[in-house]
Structure formats: structure tokens, C-alpha cells
């Protein structure tokens, strides 16, 4: 099957326009990144310069990967059930668009802003650390491998989180319930990086590669699997 870029782009643009004007979605996109930005900043502003050595020994920044792991899923959980509740899903499903393109367009509309927000929050965090933390803390905290991990894992985690959210969204009939379940279901995604940040799991190159490979496979399979189980009939009639 050859994907139609035009259909994907049409859904992507429509979703972005809709999200941009939806206050509820903006709040949903903002609150988790803010929590994961403010909490570590408050901690770091208080730590004395003498703890720099201690900080340098743990990949603390990986903790911030919780943003792409949790936030996109909550937004993606709105994507299908939101349309269903508003009554806009049926007109879309009467057009020639295939479920693969429909879901990919919707996923990309969450993926792009989520990854952009994650990187922006991370950059803001680094700037704050450089400017406002005691001397030595910034140098101990900001290390090459961790920056690379942010660049690699942010899109991979966001992708996984989105497919979990979309999967829940296609099976739900209420937006709030879908978002609640999605947040719960994406928590395990944040566990490995958080455990590395707290030195429970060693942050070695092998572990990183293994985790990245798993995420990559889940991203690809997620799209295929959710597309295969996307059932117009159930979504329209609520039954089979």
C-alpha cells in the first residue's frame, strides 16, 4: 500500500489547527512539561556547589525524558474519542482516507509539537541551570552522552506514548477517561530512564541501544497494529 501524503497532511494540518484553538488541549500539553521543568529546577537552585561531583556521577537529565514519555500520550488520547464525542469522526470516515493515513496524520499532529515542546523545555532547563545554579553544577549536569540521549530518546518515547494514547482513544467513549488511562499506561515508558537517572539501572551504551531498539520496534508495530484494529463500524455504530 502506497501512503497518500496529501491525506496525511490534510489530517495533520486540521489537527494542529484544532489543537491550537483548544484551550483544554493547550493546558494538557503544558502541565506535564511544566511539572518536569519546575521541580528539578527548584531542587538544583538549592543544591550547594559541593554536590557537583555527586551530580556528575548520575545521568540526572534522563529524568526529563518523562516529558516525551507522558505528555504526548495524554494529548493523543483525545485524537479519536474527541472526534467521536464531537460527532466529527463520521464525516471524516466517509471520505476515501484509509485508517493508516488517518492515524498517521493524527499521530504526527501530536508528535511534532510534543517533540518541539520537549526540546524547548530541555533547552530552557539547560539555560536556567547555566545561569542560575551555583558554579560547577552546570558543568557536572550537562554532559555529552546525556544530551545525545535526549536527542535520540525524545522522539522514540514520544512515538510510543502517542501510539498508546491513540490505541486507548480508539477504544474509549469518553475523553477524560481516555486521557486518564493513557497517562497511567504511559508511566512504564518513563520508568527505565528514571531508574537510570537514579542509578538503579546502569546507563551504559548497551542498555541505551537496547532500549532504543525496543522503542523503535514498538513505534513501528504500534502504528501497524492500531491501524489493523481500527474498526470504522465499532467507532460509528458503537457495536459490531
Amino acid at each position, binding site marked *: 500500500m502506497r501512503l*497518500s501524503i496529501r491525506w496525511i497532511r490534510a489530517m495533520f494540518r486540521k489537527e494542529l489547527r*484544532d489543537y491550537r484553538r483548544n484551550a483544554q488541549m493547550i493546558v494538557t500539553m503544558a502541565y506535564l512539561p511544566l511539572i518536569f521543568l519546575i521541580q528539578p529546577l527548584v531542587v538544583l537552585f538549592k543544591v550547594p556547589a559541593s554536590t557537583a561531583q555527586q551530580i556528575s556521577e548520575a545521568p540526572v537529565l534522563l529524568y526529563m525524558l518523562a516529558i516525551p514519555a507522558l505528555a504526548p500520550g495524554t494529548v493523543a488520547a483525545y485524537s479519536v474519542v474527541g472526534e467521536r464525542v464531537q460527532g*466529527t469522526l*463520521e*464525516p471524516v470516515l*466517509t471520505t476515501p482516507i484509509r485508517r493508516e493515513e488517518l492515524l498517521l496524520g493524527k499521530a504526527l499532529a501530536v508528535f511534532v509539537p510534543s517533540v518541539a515542546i520537549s526540546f524547548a523545555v530541555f533547552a530552557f532547563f539547560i539555560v536556567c541551570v547555566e545561569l542560575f545554579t551555583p558554579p560547577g553544577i552546570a558543568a557536572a549536569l550537562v554532559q555529552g552522552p546525556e544530551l545525545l540521549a535526549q536527542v535520540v530518546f525524545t522522539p522514540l518515547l514520544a512515538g510510543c506514548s502517542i501510539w498508546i494514547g491513540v490505541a486507548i482513544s480508539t477504544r474509549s467513549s469518553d475523553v477524560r477517561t481516555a486521557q486518564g488511562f493513557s497517562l497511567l499506561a504511559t508511566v512504564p515508558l518513563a520508568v527505565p530512564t528514571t531508574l537510570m537517572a537514579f542509578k538503579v539501572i546502569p546507563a551504559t551504551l548497551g542498555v541505551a541501544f537496547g532500549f532504543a531498539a525496543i522503542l523503535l520496534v514498538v513505534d513501528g508495530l504500534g502504528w501497524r497494529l492500531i491501524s489493523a484494529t481500527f474498526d*470504522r463500524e465499532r467507532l460509528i455504530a458503537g457495536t459490531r
Partner: protein
Amino acid sequence: MSSERLASADGNRGGPALSVHGLSKRFGDRVAFQDLSFEIGYGEVFGFLGPNGAGKTTTVRTLGTLLRPTSGSAIVAGIPLTHENGVEIRRRVAIMPESPGLYLRLSVSENLECFADLYETPDPKDRVERALHAVNLANRANDICGTLSKGLRQRVALARALLSDPEVLFLDEPTAGLDPVAAHDVHELIASLGRGGVTIFLTTHRLEEAERLCDRVAILNTTLRTIGRPDELRDRLFAKALTVKTLAPLTDPGYVFAGLPAVESWHQDGQATYVVVVSDLATAAPAITRALVTADAHVLSISESHHSLEDVYLELIAEEGEARVT
């Protein structure tokens, strides 16, 4: 509707626009509709009538490939109705659901641009403009849909359905919930589309709407009760009758009407009104007139009794109710 589109569509029009054979849809034990068989020609405006829960919307959704039929077959716009042909069928038809289903935070033109892309129209901006002109909304293109009245939203939904120049246009209760003025506007639009040669499948329970707009109607109540032109259905269901009104009641109406040629029966319908059932209007009307004159009756009028589509509908639904009771 563009003439070039109609011309190209004509080239594919060997068979009917819709051909349905023994189509049924069940949801578990519940029958939505059963054993539907009918055909609709290209350019026809076809009314699909029935009470709530009769299966009208489910039929539209099934023919529009949103639901899979349980049994039976259909050809929609020349394509066999199968799961594999879903995309191709949806390219050729458009469905306007009962609820407009617009993105309320998007403007009218943003809504339509999205669907123009989904229908892969060659020049989306131009097509959106033309569709808006067709529904008299060109000056509201930048309005946010959430700010529009229900009637205007319905018009936007109709414009959306026209974007692809569909071979078959399904309109599911297009005037449901509209005030008389807004409903009248939508009627005008549908009538102009019909005159333009668009094949329209109109579901409604507004009988005057069907009578005014449709070439043929079908009455559905889970199964197809009847199908035909509104006047055909009237003739089929109701005997021909003449209504005679006189200034004063006739002293002996039995003597006046009995034994006249082509008169089958009569009954009084009011103080000085008589309904005479006849087998042939052309024979009976002069004979009745002569008999009334002979009887020295003061005749106010003699007219053909008119039965509306509503009478047909109520008769059929009542018949079915009685059949269920017995």
C-alpha cells in the same frame, strides 16, 4: 455541479447509480434492516422514508461503506460493495450525516479545505469557493463554524458533501431540527442539485419534503414496505374517489349515487360532503354531475379526492402495526 464532472460521470453510467439486492444488517440479535432490494438511476432524487429506528441511517452507512452488511449485495456508483472497494466507493459518493459534524473551532473554509484534500480535489481552493457559492455561503468563508446557526452549519455540511462532485449524494435527514425558513433553504438547494443531475439518496421522515423533492420514494420499516413514485403509491394504496360537496344534505344520497356507471361505493364525510369511490374518473364524474342535477341538488364542487404521501405512509405503517398485533 460542474458540467465537465457530469459529462465524465455520464461516461461510466452503464447501469444504475445504486443497485441493492437482499441487503441486510444485524447488530447481534437486533435487525437494523432486512432484505432490501431496489435500484436507483443516475440523476434520480430518491426518498427513503421511515419512522425512527426503521434502519434509514444504517442503510446509508452501509451503502457508504461505514458498516459491513450482514448479507446481500449492492453496487454503489458502479462499484460492488465490498470491504476491499471501500476507498474507491468513498471517492465516488458523499454522505451528509444527520449531524453536520463540523470542526467548530475551525473556519468554514478551513473545514472545507481539509475535506477537499481528503477527497483529493484537483484545485482545492477553487472547489471550496464553488461549493460555498452553491450553498450561498461565499461571504461566510472566514467565519468560525462554532459561531454559525444550525441552519448555516447544515449548509456548510452540504457544501462539504459537494466538494467531490459525488456520483451519489446521500443526505441523511438534512433538515432535521431546522426551523421552517432554514429547512426551506435546504430544500431549495436539494432541488437545484436534483435539477443539476446529481443522484440524491434522501432519508427523511418529513413526508412533505419527500413529496416535494423526490422522483421516487421507498418506505422502510426494517423491511422495505413499498417503493414507487408518490402518485403511484397513492394510486396503489387508495381507490380513486370523487368528493362531492352540496349546499344542503341530499335527501336520498343512496338513490343519487347507486347504479351510476363506474361508481363502486359511497359514504358521507360531513354534513353535505360525499366521497364516491369510482373505478374510472372520466366515466363517473359526468354521470354523477348529471345525477345531482336530476336530483335538483345545489352542487358546490365535485373534485378528485387527494391523498398525500403522508396518507400513504400512515396507511402502510398502520397496516404493519395491525399485522404485528394479529
